[in-house]
């Protein structure tokens, strides 16, 4: 077996995954801490205030990474759910369901920071705008996945049901997004796209650094949650007894 396939097989084994992720987690936390300190310093002190929004633009350095991550995690959950359903890899099931609370939390952060920013800028905490609404619907989809998982007693069956729900949700998410976009729009369009960026580098860099920092946070938090979940599920098995 070549090295890559061996790695793939090994990650499917809970004891191996437990050891491997244990070694990885401190580095992820380190990356998160370093990048967050740099990103926040650049964002809060070095970057200039916006000529229209003033100092309130600095909420962006928290808001935009959270919003990006909230969508990315749902997409990842669908991919992990697909792998879990097709190949029945238990570690994947655990990773998929451990992602859900993190994703929901980032969705909440995006909604709260957005509404705090909206008060001074738009003059209201909440409007039924397309992006706000689709973020809210995304939160409901997260709640659905989590509630479905908790409704089942048996964790493996629960994870498979939740995986299926995540896949159904991901198919619908773009449809929901475009339908609400067409329904009502107040939120400004994306400043950063594939064709380049409309943001000055002094504001873009802290944003990108914060975005990468949030991914490190996700990775570290996800692996910690998955490890705990595996210990709970396997608490009667020998590898856990030998470990603890």
């Amino acid at each position, binding site marked *: 077996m070549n090295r890559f396939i061996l790695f793939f097989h090994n990650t499917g084994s809970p004891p191996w995954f437990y050891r491997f992720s244990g070694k990885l987690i401190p580095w992820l936390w380190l990356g998160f801490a370093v990048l967050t300190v740099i990103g926040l310093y650049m964002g809060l002190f070095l970057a200039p205030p916006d000529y229209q929004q003033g100092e309130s633009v600095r909420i962006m350095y928290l808001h935009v990474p959270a919003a990006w991550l909230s969508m990315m995690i749902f997409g990842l959950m669908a991919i992990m759910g697909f792998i879990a359903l097709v190949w029945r890899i238990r570690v994947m099931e655990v990773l998929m369901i451990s992602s859900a609370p993190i994703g929901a939390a980032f969705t909440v952060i995006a909604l709260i920071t957005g509404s705090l920013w909206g008060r001074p800028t738009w003059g209201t905490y909440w409007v039924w705008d397309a992006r706000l609404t689709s973020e809210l619907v995304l939160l409901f989809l997260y709640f659905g996945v989590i509630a479905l998982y908790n*409704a089942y007693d048996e964790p493996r069956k629960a994870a498979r049901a939740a995986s299926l729900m995540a896949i159904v949700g991901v198919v619908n998410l773009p449809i929901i997004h475009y339908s609400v976009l067409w329904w009502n729009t107040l939120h400004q369009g994306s400043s950063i796209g594939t064709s380049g960026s409309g943001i000055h580098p002094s504001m873009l860099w802290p944003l990108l650094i914060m975005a990468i920092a949030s991914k490190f946070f996700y990775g570290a938090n996800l692996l910690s949650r998955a490890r705990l979940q595996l210990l709970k599920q396997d608490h009667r098995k020998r590898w856990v007894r030998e470990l603890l």
Partner: protein
Amino acid sequence: MRGAFLALLRRDFLLAYRRRAELLQPLVFLLVVVTLFPLGVGPSPQLLANIAPGVIWIAALLATVLPLDSLFRSDFEDGTLEQMALSGQPLALIALARTVAHWLVSGLPIVLMSPLLAMWMNLPDEGVPVLLKSLAIGTPVLSLVGAIGGALTVSLKRGGQLLSLLVFPLYVPLLILATSAVSAAVAGLPYGGQLGLMLAGMIGALTLAPFATAAALKLSLS
């Protein structure tokens, strides 16, 4: 395969016919919900006309989700579903037959009753045919997508509320398109685009949803 499909349909109709009182429940529910709105927001004809498409559509959503909880439940509990899954017929076909029966029994009556509701809600005459069309295109999607939720929650003791939490977010695009089509028709604007998108959604749901339902059923049976 066609034989199995038709046999299932016939069986479901027979079952529905034998339980006629249960059949009426969603319809009465729909009437009661729509009645609450004029009582809640006031009987002003102009106000009612403005909110009519949304109210009727939301009431239709609630009335379709209500019987979804029992869509697979009795078959699941007495083992019929297991036998169907073992019968060698594709599970997606069985799911589709159940869904079609569900729509004919609970979705179609809503479509037929909508002109009455439109009159109650004081919807202008130009809006009524479009409301009818939007419900005719939209209620099958409600059944198809709802069946996925029904199949996912069938093995749970109390799946009703969870089911609505699962499927309502998925209904958002449909609600937006349908109500905007009716409002556009009332305002004298073209509404073909919205109905066309809904039709595309229906075809998409018709081709994809039975497979998701089948996967969910397989999971519930395991």
